[in-house]
């Protein structure tokens, strides 16, 4: 196990789109262990994505079971090749990022999502989630598509209803 180096802006590699995982082998699981150790090493991060450590595969870890005020959650999730299959609702929340030190900003995310993914052995996973956990998953999924939360920050004066277009999918933004 090892703590890996976190890429930080303005590193262009953070904009790279990650590739799907095809080999569910020991090397993959060893990497996931390192990724988890890296997540837990710094400031309390509820999630981490493989490209944040310069590994451009579609792997994220999310765990919101330790928030100050408990929120609905599915515990510790390792999501390989995750995909959002359904979005609903939107709300603003404050985000920061291991790859963007000393900055936080408001981001609009879907409040309810359904996702499909695989575990580290390639078994299929499906989750339905809401609120903070859904936000964390959307934040991490952005990383594997080369997006950062600073690409989505809005002013608190922003009228939420003008941003409905967001629901149609992350890429549609801007």
């Amino acid at each position, binding site marked *: 196990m090892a703590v890996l180096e976190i890429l930080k802006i303005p590193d262009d590699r953070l904009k790279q789109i990650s590739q799907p995982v095809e080999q569910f082998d020991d090397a993959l699981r060893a990497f996931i262990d390192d990724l988890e150790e890296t997540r837990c090493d710094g*400031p*309390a*991060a*509820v*999630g*981490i*994505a493989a490209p944040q450590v310069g590994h451009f595969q579609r792997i994220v870890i*999310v765990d919101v079971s330790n*928030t*100050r*005020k408990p*929120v609905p959650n599915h515990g510790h999730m390792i999501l390989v090749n995750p995909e959002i299959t359904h979005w609903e609702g939107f709300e603003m*929340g*404050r*985000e*920061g*990022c*291991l790859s963007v030190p*000393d*900055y*936080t900003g408001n981001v609009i995310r879907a409040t309810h999502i359904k996702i499909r993914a695989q575990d580290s052995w390639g078994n299929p996973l499906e989750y339905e989630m809401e609120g*903070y956990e859904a*936000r*964390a998953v959307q*934040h*991490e999924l952005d990383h594997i598509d080369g997006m950062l939360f600073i690409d989505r920050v809005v002013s*608190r*004066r922003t009228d939420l209803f003008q941003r409905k277009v967001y629901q149609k999918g992350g890429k549609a933004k801007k």
Partner: protein
Amino acid sequence: MSEWKMLTLVGEDQPGIVGRVTNALYQEGWNLGEASMIRLGGNFTIMMMVTGTGTVEPVLQPVADELGLHLHVDDIAGSLHQHLVPNIQVRVAGADRAGIVAQVTAVLAEQGCNILELESDVAGSSEKPVYIMHIQGYSDHPLETLEEALDNLGDIDVNVSSIETLIG
């Protein structure tokens, strides 16, 4: 460590203020730090940290005069990377009347809440104005204590929630 100055510029809003002001600074070798710029009641307001050598007034006064802006400069002790992350959000809305901000913020002060950001607006119409305010702050007190303290403000609708900043 570099020396920072806080610039304040206020005047009737028109297109081009930010571009003119920041270019004048840039051309004379001044660097910008954190800034807040917003239109308030038809005025444009700028508060901005700048650092550079010499005095900044000669650089900006001609631009300020031309654009009809008041310019004010303070030497400040601050520096960058001093952010505090808010953990409390207070949303206030109610029929506009004198004292809303005073009452809410007095309670927050009593509760040891440090206001990091406050923005307020008057919505509705001239006949029926509505006051809307958002505060983000930091407090060590539990949310419930704050909620209770803010519960007795009568006609004002106050909503307190915690901000759980997501780091991912």
